[in-house]
């Protein structure tokens, strides 16, 4: 069975916390990845998800969240995409390449994060 939410972030603690938060607050399953290569190796599972939450900066010299976004779009991902990032609001690449995906800035209060996820999946706040 595929997870409802895909979470991409290079921080391991966040990768452990996000599934707990989404499970306890919304009952959603979440699979987490630390980089684009891991997403690519779980292609089928990822592409069936309803929502992808992507960090942008995944460390030096590795594809970032925008590359992951392009990969998802290129492989027919039909779910919603949320960017959850520590900065990059003023990054010109973010402005020009995220194509309408919602940009959330860390740190976000857990209730706000849950509300955003609920809106993205169920269309409700």
């Amino acid at each position, binding site marked *: 069975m595929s997870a409802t939410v895909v979470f991409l972030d290079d921080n391991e*603690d966040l990768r452990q916390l996000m599934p707990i938060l989404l499970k306890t607050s919304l009952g959603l399953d979440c699979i987490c990845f630390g980089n684009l290569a891991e997403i690519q190796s779980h292609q089928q599972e990822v592409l069936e998800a309803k929502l992808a939450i992507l960090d942008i900066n995944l460390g030096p010299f590795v594809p970032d969240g925008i590359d992951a976004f392009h990969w998802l779009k290129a492989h027919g991902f039909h779910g919603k995409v949320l960017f959850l990032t*520590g900065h990059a609001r003023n990054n010109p690449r973010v402005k020009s390449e995220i194509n309408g995906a919602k940009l959330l800035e860390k*740190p976000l209060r857990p209730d706000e994060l849950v509300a955003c996820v609920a809106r993205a999946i169920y269309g409700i706040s």
Partner: protein
Amino acid sequence: MIADDPPEKKHLYQVQLPASGAWAGAMTAALFNALGMVIELAIVRRTPGVPAKPAAISAVVALILLIVLVLKRRTASVKWAAIAYLVTTVSVISVLMNTNLKFAVSQRNWLPFQENKLGCLAAALVAPEFWAGLASILAYCLSGVLQLEFFFPPEVRTRVALEPWPLLAFGLGGVLALIYRFHRAHLTQELSRIQAQNAAIRRLAGVFLDIRDRMNTPLQVIELSVDVLRNSRQATDEILDRIDRSVESLNNINSMLVEHEKEIEWEAER
């Protein structure tokens, strides 16, 4: 702060050329002098009544200066370049004081004060410091004017009736060119300083963006950990470990900020 540094206001005599540029100016002047005096010697040999000794001495002085300047180019300084340049000027003017009158008397088609006029323009182009250039131009002009007024016989003065006005015009042209050259050097230096400031500001802006990114992730971990701690039955130690790691990350970022704080203080003290 770096961004608040006002543009520097400098008088022209305070503008310092780069040491290598000043040194090159002094070397060029010495080279011109050496070559010029060799040509002068060739002319003097065909002109009876004009002594060759001053030009020969000046050529030797120029050659010695040139050798010293070439050998010492790795320890170039504006001060020594200016001194060498002034030695060249004195050496050239000594020759002109000795030979101008004799050329004027012995050659009916003598073009008055050509070397002095050339000296005014050369000073504007190669002087290593503003005051050295200004002093040289004044020396080239005044030496010619003094010769004309006090040492030239009336028949020669009649022949060169227009002088000293053309000589003074060259002097004025030299001063204007010198002002332009040093004003331009000042603007170039200001531009480089502003570009360096901009680069420092951009670098700091990049660092602060990076720091924001690094701080926001541990803060997010703390936010979520506290929430999970409140709402779940997950083992408390594990969550507290996460909070500890995040706090440690924030402390590391604080250390980074301390490093950059030093950089900002250094820029402000500059």
